[in-house]
């Protein structure tokens, strides 16, 4: 069976078992190893990618369901020497990263969350992170960074909104 979808902005055609999990194609066929296979059961979130803008665990996504979809991986967020996305830059500035294995998935999940929940509280952020496990950091710095980024985002929106008047 053939499945065609967009992968980081380019067409990608897959011909093989449609039950193949997306993560295997990313890591083994495309060498997009930023997507991490940690539990392969949908618990840890390290394999999170965007499918049509939604954050989904790629370990649970059979490629057969991706026909015509837009898939973006961590590598697709900022190509080449492009500057980091503000959330990534904020994680770097806050010294939030340790072993780093959870972060690509963490970034993909949180970006979708921040877009959809611009007014999220600290508790909301923590609740949203139930599907993203980190073994190293103890989370709090990640939560603080997201809260700061959201505040920044609201501030920017307010300034932009004010300028319209």
């Amino acid at each position, binding site marked *: 069976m053939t499945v065609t979808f967009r992968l980081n902005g380019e067409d990608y055609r897959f011909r093989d078992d449609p039950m193949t999990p997306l993560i295997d194609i990313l890591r083994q066929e495309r060498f997009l190893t930023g*997507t991490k296979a940690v539990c392969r059961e949908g618990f840890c979130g390290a394999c999170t990618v965007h499918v049509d803008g939604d954050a989904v665990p790629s370990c649970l996504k059979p490629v057969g369901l991706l026909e015509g979809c837009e898939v973006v991986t961590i590598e697709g967020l900022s190509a080449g020497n492009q500057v980091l996305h503000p959330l990534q830059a904020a994680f770097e500035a806050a*010294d939030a990263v340790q*072993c780093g294995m959870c972060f690509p998935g963490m970034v993909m999940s949180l970006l979708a969350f921040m877009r959809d929940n611009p007014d999220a509280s600290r508790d909301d952020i923590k609740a949203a*992170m*139930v599907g993203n496990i980190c*073994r190293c950091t*103890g989370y709090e710095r990640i939560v603080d960074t997201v809260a700061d980024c959201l505040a920044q985002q609201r501030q920017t929106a307010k300034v932009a909104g004010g300028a319209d008047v």
Partner: protein
Amino acid sequence: MSEASVTVMNLPRRDAQDKLRGRTKYTNDRARPDMLHAVLLRSTVPAGRIVRLDVSPALAWPGVRAVATGADAPGLYGIGIADHPLMAIDTIRYHGEPIAVVAAETEEQARAALAAIILEIEPLAPVLTMAEALEPGARLIHEDWRGYEVITEGGARAGNIAWEAKSSRGDVDAAFARSDVRIVESSFSVGRQSHVPFEPRVAIGSWEDGRAHIQTSTQVPWTVRNVTGRVMQLPPGRVRVTVPPVGGGFGLKFDASIEPITALLARMTGRPVMLENTRQEEMATCLCRENAEIRIRSAVTAEGEIVGREAVVLMDCGAYGGEQVFLTTMTAHTLGGNYRVGATRLVSRAVYTNTPPNGAFRACNGVYNTFALERHTDEICDFLGLDPMEFRKKNVLGDGDFGPTGQVFEDDVLAPMLDRMETLRAKTGTLERKADGRLYGMATTVGTWFVFTGPSAATVNLNADGSATLVTSGVEIGSGTMMQSLPQIVAGQLGLAPHQVIVREADTDAAGLDVGVGGGRTTVSIGAASVAACAEVKEKLLRAAGEMLQTRPEDLVLRDGRAEISGRPGSGATIPAVVAHAQATTGPITGSGAFTAKNTPAMAGCAMGHFIDALDIPVFVVHEAEVAVDPDTGHVEVLAYRVVQDVGRALNPRAIMGQIQGGVVQGLGYALHEEVTITTDGRIAQNDFETYRLPLAGDVVPVAADLYEGAPSLGPLGAKGAGEVPILAVGAAIACAVSRAIGKPVRQLPLTPPRVLGLLHDREPQPDFPHIASGWAANTLG
């Protein structure tokens, strides 16, 4: 300018960007299309004899390039004693033990071929618990234990006791016989803890110019090199180990495990071979923090003076000795730490069972010995009606006090740290109001651990562009040491900026011996070796500058990328100019440095079977927890957590805070819900993320921490390792707080809701160890 003022800073990590962009190539990201994939055939019984093993059908399978068994690499390895084969030879000792390995073009082909291997095992009744292993007449898990090579002399061994370490100081019998003492005895038991690093154990072996090259996710490249040499019966110099960024270690990767298998297969096939544990294999064969059983007894006067103490600690090493053999030593320094005690005797035994081998996990047996000691201390206070905080203030180790091996502690550290905890609490306030009708408890506990010193080497090359290259066998496991404290230290020594210091990834062909990244030793040991290397560089650099500038080297200083005349900023010459001059006249500027343990003395005859008689660098912590216990469900919520940690000198305070938050949270998992159990057929029951409950964002609280500086240390600028100890006293603080909240003695971890409910309703059986004799001496091999 003081050394500290140019070294201490909140330097961010240079590896963060690539990690955040998903570009970092960990070992398990390095599969290439031309690589073979290896898969292990593992035992599905906990004990047995291999009566038939025929791999030839697997060799005939499509895509298969090699099959190997224990007979292909028959050397034994281990710590203290060589008892561990690479793959089972004749005898199966645990469920999950590797028996054979297949290398094929794809993983699917290798898996299919595994099924074709003919294996017949005659099962034996497994010895699954330490109680069974210690029974008189118990089946020997290692029938040939007497014949094993002893790598480190001194430990007593017999049958299922892999190693025994003892410490004894003073007349304990006399102390217990005193008429003015009360005797308090407590028993504790703890389960295993699984590390769950996000990158499992994985290695890539290749055979290059007649030598093995192993890329691996390890904390101990030199151990991998030496073990590979041993099992393959090669000189270790024929093995090269390089280490890409490691996706989490926590001690799990402090021993060699699957790496030599990749070298073996690479030699057989001439192709690079990758072997990666699946998550299920990783958890089923995790070298966990061991389960343990502890009995401790103290003789205390009415005023609260501890005049005598004795204890027995049984540590389950699983099927092979491994780290537990070494860790028997640490009982003296942890269970025997924290307090000033009159006469003391402690015995710690690593016991073989037919279960997956255990290993090292962040602060190792310190975590449960601290739990046991701190809960025992609270039981003493309860019994004698003493205030637990006052008792601690009065009895914690201070300047001139003796440890259990007769080591003399320097300086008062714990007592002022307890005062600092009170100050911290006054600042943060307490959160009893948040208990909201639930049972509330708060407890302050102390802990003693150490920096594992031991040998490290460093080379520093100073380059003509003004940069310096630091070459060591250090590994970046996530703690940031290689990214932060080491470049900070080297830059501070040479008057450079940290970004000018290039840090080489570990390569045993490039850097000298190192005993590994763990035990809080990287900043201290590799740091000290780096300072020594910098001293040589500095000396050469100043000599060349002196010659160039016609000045005496003693009058020159390195500052801001220049060799300047002291007190005249901007004078002299730039470092690149001096390096260029040196290169043209005397040759490139390079320095090398070394460091090793100081071997702090103990009292003669106090320590038996110990790998370390005394602590070169003790490290102390004070932890305080506030909890709320739901009496209906048994659920424990952590309301607040506070830490005062002895860091010697904080080289990067923000990075240390990150280690404290992460370490405390791992400890909360251990204390509350990370539970490993062994099934009746000897398996670890929790082999995935569904059954093993890791801490989630919603479980944790921000840890308030105060870094205590100024305690003595051999480390560079007085630094101590700060990443290991944040987990040390978490089990203790939580257990003591829960115990106070529910008004019942807590003697087991983890405190899962069913266990807490059981305790509340007096349904939970308290640990009782018929296999620990009541007379202390009967628990020793004499």
